[in-house]
């Protein structure tokens, strides 16, 4: 069970959160201009690293706000949380 630090509410039980997958995936600026390969990448390809992963979480049973976290997928250690719109912290 993870303890996830919501940037608004503080550390809360994992069961209160929804998972939103990879963070920082912008909608294509001009979707009609994309090639099939580019469209496939946007729709179906998401990073799947074994290591630090910037991702979205929603505190669904709390403040109901989305935020970003960098979590190490090999250990589940949460390395940083940051609010939507804030830049991704540099993890060293």
């Amino acid at each position, binding site marked *: 069970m993870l303890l996830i630090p919501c940037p608004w509410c503080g550390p809360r039980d994992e069961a209160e959160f929804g998972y939103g*997958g990879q963070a920082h995936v912008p909608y294509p600026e001009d979707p009609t201009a994309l090639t099939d390969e580019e469209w*496939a990448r946007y729709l179906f390809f*998401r990073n*799947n*690293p*074994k290591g630090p992963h910037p991702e979205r979480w929603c505190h669904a049973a709390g403040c109901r706000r989305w935020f970003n976290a960098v979590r190490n997928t090999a250990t589940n250690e949460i390395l940083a949380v940051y609010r939507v719109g804030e830049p991704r912290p540099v993890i060293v």
Partner: protein
Amino acid sequence: MSPRTPGAQLPEHPDWLWRTPDPRRSYDVVIVGGGGHGLATAHYLARNHGITDVAVLERGWLAGGNMARNTTIIRSNYLWDESAGIYEHALRLWEGLEEELDYPLLFSQRGVLNLAHSLQDVRDSVRRVEANRLNAVDAQWLDPRQVKEVCPIVNISPDARYPVMGATYQPRAGIAKHDHVAWGLARSADAAGIDLIQNCEVTGIDVTGGRVTGVRTSLGPIAAGKVALCAAGHSSVLAAMAGFELPLQSHPLQALVSELLEPVHPTVVMSNAVHVYVSQAHKGELVMGAGVDAYTAYTQRGAFHVIERQMAAALELFPVFARAHVLRTWGGIVDVTPDASPITGLAPVDQLYLNCGWGTGGFKATPGVGWVYAHTIAHDDPHPLARPFCLDRFTTGALVDEHGAAAVAH
């Protein structure tokens, strides 16, 4: 006390069934990953194609990944023709595999019930039964009373939170003992001269001019004419070593067993809507699984609330389980694709082959994958049954969308 010792009918634990060779410096074919798929591929490379200058490289011990962790459900009642093709091919191979390997696999065709809990479930299920029949896959639609005849301990009361409104039934489905399957395949591959190399982690893939030339490993570099990936949850990590990405997300998937009990559960019951599937292993433990944990991870463990939810669902369906205890829970890492169908075929690098994305349901496919993938590797051309499952379907849009359509959980 029971007069019958649980497990008394099981064969003795075997001695080592294969050699433990040092890797040679070069092979015609290197298979990365010694789970069920890697071992089955080795077996059929030798048996069907006479290719035996082969090494299977495994970072841990043989079949200690998902092959050791799955709930062993075998069935072929998938909706789409492409899926029915490959899974039914696998089921037919299962039906002769004990003889082929001359090894007891405890393959037990005790049938599978896929429960329907809503009107939409009923419609989808009946549609799937008809589709299965058109593909010569055995399938029946059962009403709640017939469900109870097949599995007397299922609660068919209309008052249940998710009432059982019927089920699809595939009598030829069942379970097998996963360790024995791995051992039987490993013994056969080893006897053909194939090197099974444990504690050998692939750390790099060498590509020269768009063509694979070998791998780097924790035991040194190994040159290879062809490299075939069979790394399940770690497939994205290996693809990155060869310089490309895959449309996969690796999630924990958990399962659990109860203590050993007298036989109470004669078949396999799956419910997609409430996310639980249950059978009783030969030794007597109830084996249950759930859906994946929501987030991606490589940790081989998951969250307890997922288990709790799954137990709540199991108790609704099987009130008699209230007295059973959870003995052990564990997790594997499953590689899930966007359409819940596998990727098997050619890779964007020459002489490199892909077999991944079997996610939560690849045990049942083990012999079928081995057969088809060995063909793909031997001919450098996808086997006809594999063609719909090539990587380029995500670009062409020809997805094989089994999500929700065919009780895809397992």
